[in-house]
């Protein structure tokens, strides 16, 4: 059986209330008790800020691909009459989307949503065959029309329409016996189709002992000054807070002085003003009441555990979740003797008449003064709470669903025809009359997101820099090599799609740059869907920062987003980079670390990233995932650039005559050129016959060193500088040198070490973690930043070299680009 759960109840304002908590917990319990059934959760894209937290809630319980998001043009809230046409389109669109998932049964966790927000719920408008079950919380507006329906026609119309939908449900899940009876009596719903699934609380709601420090932090934060009586929940009229305040005011002065009345949770400001006015009228002073405002679950549990008494005076509840939460945390609970509360609380001693201030006050006094009674309430409450469990509720619901599915008589909609049926329905109902092209575009894009063409999953490889300009740095070399391998050997389930973005427009486009056939057609925007993967392989800080919201929207849709991090050098070594480089890198990192996995090009970089992240406050809902892979080094598989200068032969001969040490890399501060040159100047001064060959372009912040190199007396005698030479020439320089000096103070990987090993050339490297990681025991290391220290080390090394006792690099392990690409995919879980 495939159960599709509509979880908009956890997306709207209800998420701050019992309905949202109930929806999430029930869905979770259905998943954990689903056995062989498949569960898919559907979410509304018009609540983009809620999707990631819901995905996080079900992480590891449900594959992310089983959380699907549907799209419709908004806004659609019923409060605004102008939204009618769009809302009706959205209702059909949602039903078509759910039908396309081919459910055996649909479960709507909360139907009465969408009046003052963009939720969309309906039953049987397009899909008249799939059974739909709905949780019915209460029918309070129907039972109190004067208060809730008559003052507002728009709300009444909305509410009555939802009731019509409710009556079309195949099954109703009532959250209590009292709520079940309400449905039977008020809307005459067939008794045999309603079940009391009851409710429960999350296992985190339990007794705990707070340390003095924790208590102090809590009471200071919420301005609580003494032992307190607690209320949690909303503030609408049925919650009966005015009577609670009056009852509290009628307690003896001594009792009030000893006990503050605390209202915990999000209460609208206008309600707070009304309640404060009520308190003033009743003769209470300012400090006697406390309003905490929004509190998180952890704080709520602590407050339940700390309060002397929990009081819940609501005269109408569907269930009364706060009462059960408080009992589970070992609070002494008293509550109104109305609707569902007696069955939840299960103790007559804990009940009072909610319409009598005297009765409320008497019960409060009795419990506060009689410690035996208080302890008895706690004990019985804990025992009663054990009777409720989400597993029990879910098993009842699943059993009912199985029964409904087994008796299903109507054929499901054909998945091939759903889109066509939707388009016909939209047109036939006149919902697109007077629609402009602009509006049709928006609708078409939403429908394309909901019903993408059947195709293989896509593996998007970001090659933005390669397409937008190609800075031809090491990063582009990596991007090109990995992409090349992925295009040659794509993972089985995926089509590899190189894509690019710019900072000028939102969205990424497919690039045809790497196709064999060129085309004049403009690059298309990518059409992503759940299960696709995006790897940010190329490095364009400003593009990624500009595309942040687009990427977040992709993640909401169920696309996994990973980024490759090459190094943190601009942050860790700001002095050796131009002004602003560190800040730009920091901004980029704080964006990429919000997504799924950050793949570092070495274990050393991964460690640096983890350390950096500890210093940041980047909000995430899911755990931060990092991993590392190594880059390829099969330079022979990459097409080399060719060309030798006329004097190449002469220079190479000179290199051969005297032992030549080679440095490879752009001339920039961190690369250690200054120290190496100092060392060689001392060696030359001391009469040591050695050459220094530097291969690398002029970088930044090295004007003095560049000038020194160009004007050096030993230039082209014992000092050689090769700027911008071809790969072919570099090969030859490697072949005519005896040792690579890797003096860099910071690297992401250290490719020259592997290239040296491939040339069987010994390596003398600075002792930094990344060089140890890459070269291990197959290189010699030096420490210190003085030229003299290095000069001594080179002398020692030369002695060992003469005796053939130096460390050899041939055994250094390295990977091909194919292996590197495979390692990248494996660590990202892509097969």
């Amino acid at each position, binding site marked *: 059986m495939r159960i599709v759960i509509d979880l908009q109840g956890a997306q709207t304002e209800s998420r701050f209330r019992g309905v949202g908590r109930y929806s999430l917990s029930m869905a979770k319990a259905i998943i954990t008790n689903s056995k062989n059934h498949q569960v898919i959760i559907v979410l509304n894209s018009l609540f983009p800020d809620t999707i990631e937290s819901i995905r996080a809630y079900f992480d590891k319980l449900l594959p992310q691909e089983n959380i699907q998001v549907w799209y419709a043009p908004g806004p659609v809230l019923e409060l605004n009459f102008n*939204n009618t046409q769009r809302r009706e389109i959205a209702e059909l669109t949602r039903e078509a989307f759910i039908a396309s998932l081919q459910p055996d049964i649909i479960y709507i966790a909360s139907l009465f949503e969408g009046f003052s927000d963009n939720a969309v719920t309906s039953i049987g408008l397009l899909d008249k065959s799939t059974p739909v079950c709905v949780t019915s919380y209460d029918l309070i507006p129907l039972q109190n029309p004067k208060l809730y329906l008559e003052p507002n026609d728009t709300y009444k119309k909305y509410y009555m329409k939802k009731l019509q939908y409710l009556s079309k449900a195949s099954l109703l899940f009532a959250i209590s016996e009292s709520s079940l009876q309400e449905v039977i009596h008020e809307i005459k719903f067939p008794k045999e189709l309603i079940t009391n699934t009851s409710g429960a609380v999350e296992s985190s709601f339990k007794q705990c002992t707070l340390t003095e420090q924790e208590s102090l932090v809590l009471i200071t934060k919420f301005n609580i000054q003494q032992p307190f009586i607690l209320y949690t929940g909303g503030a*609408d009229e049925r919650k009966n807070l005015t009577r609670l305040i009056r009852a509290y005011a009628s307690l003896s002065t001594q009792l009030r002085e000893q006990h503050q009345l605390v209202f915990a949770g999000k209460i609208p400001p*206008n309600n707070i003003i009304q309640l404060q006015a009520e308190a003033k009228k009743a003769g209470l002073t300012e400090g006697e009441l406390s309003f905490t405002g929004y509190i998180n679950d952890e704080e709520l549990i602590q407050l339940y555990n700390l309060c002397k008494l929990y009081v819940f005076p609501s005269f109408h509840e569907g269930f009364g979740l706060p009462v059960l939460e408080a009992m589970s945390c070992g609070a002494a609970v008293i509550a109104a003797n109305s609707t569902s509360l007696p069955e939840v609380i299960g103790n007559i001693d804990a009940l009072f008449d909610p319409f009598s201030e005297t009765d409320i006050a008497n019960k409060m006094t009795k419990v506060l003064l009689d410690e035996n009674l208080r302890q008895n309430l706690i004990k019985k409450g804990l025992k009663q709470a054990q009777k409720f469990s989400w597993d029990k509720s879910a098993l009842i619901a699943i059993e009912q669903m199985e029964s409904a599915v087994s008796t299903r008589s109507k054929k499901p909609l054909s998945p091939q025809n759903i889109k066509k049926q939707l388009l016909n329905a939209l047109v036939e109902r006149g919902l697109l009359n007077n629609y402009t092209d602009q509006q*049709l*575009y928006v609708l078409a894009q939403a429908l394309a997101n909901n019903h993408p063409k059947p195709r293989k999953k896509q593996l998007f490889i970001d090659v933005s820099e390669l397409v937008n300009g190609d800075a031809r740095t090491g990063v582009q070399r990596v991007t090109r090599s990995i992409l090349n391998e992925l295009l040659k050997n794509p993972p089985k389930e995926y089509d590899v799609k190189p894509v690019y973005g710019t900072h000028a427009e939102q969205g990424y486009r497919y690039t045809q740059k790497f196709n064999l056939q060129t085309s004049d057609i403009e690059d298309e*925007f990518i*059409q992503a869907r759940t299960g696709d993967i995006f790897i940010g392989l190329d490095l364009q800080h400003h593009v990624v920062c500009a595309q942040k919201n687009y990427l977040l929207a992709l993640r909401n849709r169920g696309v996994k987003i990973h980024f490759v991090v090459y190094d943190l050098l601009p942050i860790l070594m700001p002095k050796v980079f131009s002004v602003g480089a560190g800040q730009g890198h920091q901004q980029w990192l704080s964006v990429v670390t919000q997504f799924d996995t950050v793949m570092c090009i070495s274990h050393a970089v991964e460690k640096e990233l983890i350390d950096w992240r500890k210093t940041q406050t980047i909000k995430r809902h899911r755990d931060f995932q990092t991993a590392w892979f190594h880059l390829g080094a099969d330079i022979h598989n990459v097409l080399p650039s060719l060309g030798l200068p006329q004097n190449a032969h002469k220079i190479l001969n000179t290199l051969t005559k005297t032992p030549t040490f080679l440095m490879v890399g752009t001339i920039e501060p961190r690369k250690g050129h200054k120290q190496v040159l100092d060392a060689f100047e001392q060696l030359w001064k001391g009469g040591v016959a050695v050459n220094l060959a530097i291969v690398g372009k002029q970088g930044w912040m090295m004007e003095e060193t560049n000038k020194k190199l160009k004007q050096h007396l030993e230039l082209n005698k014992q000092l050689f500088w090769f700027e911008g030479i071809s790969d072919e020439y570099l090969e030859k320089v490697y072949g005519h040198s005896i040792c690579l000096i890797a003096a860099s103070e910071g690297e992401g990987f250290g490719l020259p070490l592997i290239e040296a090993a491939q040339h069987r050339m010994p390596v003398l490297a600075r002792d930094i973690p990344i060089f140890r990681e890459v070269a291990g025991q197959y290189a010699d290391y030096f420490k210190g930043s003085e030229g003299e220290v290095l000069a001594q080390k080179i002398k020692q090394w030369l002695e060992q070299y003469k005796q053939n006792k130096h460390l050899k690099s041939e055994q250094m392990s390295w990977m091909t680009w194919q292996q590197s690409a495979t390692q990248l995919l494996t660590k990202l879980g892509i097969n």
Partner: protein
Amino acid sequence: MKVPFIQTITKSEKIIIQKCVVFVNKHPGFKKIAMWFMRFSPKFRQRLISKLINGPADNELSVNSSEHTIELNELTEDARAIYRELQSTIEHQIKSN
């Protein structure tokens, strides 16, 4: 469940709200102040939500409340195909009527 607390408004209140909305639209800097002030009056808030937050419905075109006007070539290939299907369904409907 949450039940919105909403009341009907009188004609004079409606005029005040309309004037307020016109003023705030002309002087967007006052929007926050107006919102803060109106939060204490549910019935005023109801109107302000629809006028100030939602804006006129016809101006709200995009999927996720972006103000960007989109062109046909900015749609994905799949979306363009659906747009063409929508158009042909509409044309078919017009013909059959």
